């Protein structure tokens, strides 16, 4: 057995799916944010796999950008969470429905 791009992409797909499940089923916003990190990591695995496939570093560079993006997203997301927690004393996504019709 050899390890090819297919296996990498398969791992990526698994991580992405698990992340999706996390986003959709958990109530805790913190866990949702972690799940989003999982999805972003799945993307990075794919990028690195294809970078290896085609023998170019562009994919890895893109991966770096995604990491920076993830950092920004986490920073803003957690700040939002803190602001929200201060106002409503909850970290549950389904209790945040102020925008409901």
């Amino acid at each position: 057995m050899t390890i090819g791009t297919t296996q990498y992409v398969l791992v990526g797909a698994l991580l992405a799916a698990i992340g999706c499940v996390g986003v959709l089923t958990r109530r805790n916003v913190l866990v949702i944010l972690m799940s989003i990190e999982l999805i972003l990591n799945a993307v990075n695995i794919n990028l690195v796999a294809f970078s290896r496939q085609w023998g170019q570093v562009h994919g890895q560079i893109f991966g770096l950008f995604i990491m920076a993006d993830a950092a920004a997203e986490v920073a803003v997301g957690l700040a939002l969470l803190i602001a929200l927690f201060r106002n409503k004393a909850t970290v549950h996504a389904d209790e945040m429905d102020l925008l409901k019709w």
Partner: protein
Amino acid sequence: MPFLDTLWLVPLFPACGAFLIGMLGRRFSRRGVTTLCVGMPLAAFLWALGAVRELQHLPGRQFEQVLFAWLPSLTAASHSMGADVGLLLDPLSAVLVLLVTGVGLLIHLYSVGYMAREGGYYRFFGCLNLFLFFMLTLVLANNLLLLFVGWEGVGMCSYLLIGFWFKKHTARTAAMKAFLLNRVGDAGFLLGVLLLLRVFGTVRFTAMTQALTRHAAPVGLITAATLLLFWGVTGKSAQFPLFVWLPDAMEGPTPVSALIHAATMVTAGIYLLCRTHLLFQAAPHTMAVVAAVGAGTSLFAAAVALVQTDIKRVLAFSTISQLGTMFLACGVGAFAAGLFHVVTHAFFKAVLFLGAGSVIHALDGEQDLSRMGGLARFLPITTGCMGVATLAIAGIPPLAGFVSKDQILSAAWQASPWLWAVSWITAGLTALYMFRLYLLTFHGPARWATRHPAQQPHEAPGSMTVPLLILAGLSLVGGGLGWPASLGGANRLAGWLAPVLARTPEAAGSMGLMAVAVLLAMAAAGLAWVVYIRHPQLPRRWAARWPRFNYWLHEGGELDAAYTAVFARGLGKGGGARLARFDDAVVDRTVDLSGAVTRLAAQLAAWWDVWVVDGLWINGLAKLSVLIARPLLLLQSGRLQTYALLMVFGLGTFLLFYLLR
């Protein structure tokens, strides 16, 4: 030409001030408001000064600048109707711009002291700056439509400032009265503008002038249009029959009365006449109307001013009278003389109002002449300035009022000795009531009482006396601007205005006219001294002898009562009875019949309405949309994860589509 090219900055400076105050007024400190709102007129004044200096060297002394097309839809295929935002600076508007910014600056400065202890400080200055912006727009506009914008804008500011103390009932009603009467006039103005647009196809002043000089204008239409314009002017410039708002406008703070209701806004009518003087000269009937209204108003208002007891109302009727004199000048074709009187009047009337404000300030809000007197000891500067201004308005040489009024009298003499006689008597009355005001306020026994006996009335702070002194100085020497040739002068103002307004030749024997006028003024001054200082019981005795006439005059000709009776109480109760019978017999029967028919039709329509329109169409549709909306409503849960779920579904659909393609 750095100043001319940026001429738009002149109105923009006060606009910026007004905007900043309007947006952030509360956040400014008093000092900040003062700096901003006095600095802006100062900047505008200096900028205008620079622009006028450059204008001197311009060939033709005319500078027109179109900033942008305001109403492009008013542009026909072949030519523009000129409804642009454009500025026109020529000798005529230059005089007014300098006057408005200069006097405006001084009155802003005065207000700093006058309003120091009032609430709404920033509101006052914001409105004052806004007024300057609209006034400058009015003066600098290169077309009638933009001028109308300024015209309405100053009216609005006048409304806001008359009602400045809006907690006072009389101030509110006075503001509303001014606004409504101005609306009556403005309707005529707008109709006139539209008619002129129809006649000339343009509202631009320069284009209209060209059209008028090139070929003969239709006299009938021009007469109608100018009459309509003059109708508007009688509203804004407080002429018969629309002048009744100006005396009540004195409810506003005194600096407002000085700036808006004496020096600048009310003279907008004279400016408009000068600006469109070619039109008016093409319509001799209108000119006759203007002269007659001006002469009549001036005589009447002067007589009314003689019996007023409120110091500011005396000055208000005096303003109406002086404006009438200016219109008389315009009506006989002496536009330059009229404009000259606008300038000198702005100087001395501003002094009179500001001095009156200073007196009111010193007496804790007292405005009744019968409770003043003997103030010369306590207010030496105010007394001196008021004295100079009184001499100026009375026409004592060589002060400013003498020179300008003499030119008007001379022009009136040339037109008709009757007009001269009317304005001559007006001048005498003017001297009489002004000396009455001056003597009753500052001389004779003191009839006032301060709130605390130990506290004496005292002179106002420097920010109030300095503008007063400057304006008094201008009233003293302002006549030099237009010193007539018969007295060895060159009439530089008329020379400066010559490219726009033709010079009026001086009457033969003008020296004689002058002498007669001066003699009358001096006699009136003497009479005032005798009647109001030596024998103060005389006026009361005369008033008792003709009580009805006295009351009529005191109420300003009872025009207010007439308007109330005619317009406010529904066109008369006397005719009501006869009308009622006609109403019962004819009108009501017709109404009843048509009512019955309507009822029948309505019942049919109602059935249709209830069952078909409402039932099937409106309610049916509404129910249908509710029915559709219910399930969709579930999707709109407001929850993050529902939306994420929908996103995943969307992504799945997308993938499915991709796979099945």
